[in-house]
């Protein structure tokens, strides 16, 4: 699964896209658990991050698959 990252997360991770060996469908909790195994640096940011799937924020009961466009969304500050 490819995961897009933005804003300060690009500095944290050093790139604008990361990969995680998730095929899915997986729950949001399972997604985070697997992601944090590979990218433990994200743990301190998790509470502030939202996840989007195919351009929409997901809810807690969402299922994520590798064919989805997944992104980690830090707190926004547009306008």
């Amino acid at each position: 699964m490819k995961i897009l990252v933005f804003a300060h997360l690009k500095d944290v991770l050093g790139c604008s896209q990361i990969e995680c060996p998730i095929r899915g469908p997986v729950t949001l909790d399972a997604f985070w658990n697997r992601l944090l195994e590979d990218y433990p640096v994200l743990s301190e940011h998790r509470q502030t991050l939202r996840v989007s799937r195919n351009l929409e924020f997901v809810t807690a009961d969402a299922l994520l698959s590798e064919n989805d466009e997944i992104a980690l969304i830090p707190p926004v500050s547009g306008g």
Partner: protein
Amino acid sequence: MKIDIELTQARISSKFGASTEWRGKAGALVEFSGLVRDEENDRVIASLDYEAYSTMALKSMRGILESLALPYPCLEVRVMHRVGTVPASEAAIKVAIWARHRTEAFGLLATFMDRLKKEVPIWKRDPTAPHPQLRDAESRKKFSLVQCPEEPA
């Protein structure tokens, strides 16, 4: 309600709100410019850098405006948001709303801006500010340990 949304790297034209389409029908034209101040977090700055998750930002803004069409039935909304470097005193966003009456135009503008600042994936950054993630040795250590795949083309 007609909706037109754009992200642009260029300075937003002063003619942004010009239109003759609603002549005779619109009783109100409300224009808003969100300007970059010359200070951020008590630091004097020359500019801010704006980044967007473009596809989601455009979809999100459109979704917000469509949801506001019923409570605030306006004729047209035009939104332009900058990305890239925006010098201080220039507009990071401009909104123009044509409506039959001012009440719905003001209501739509206020609600749209409130929701944009909470929901739309656009970020601003002071390019001269030291990044907090890289301030201490532990963060630098974590940073160096991250392995990234190849960047997308």
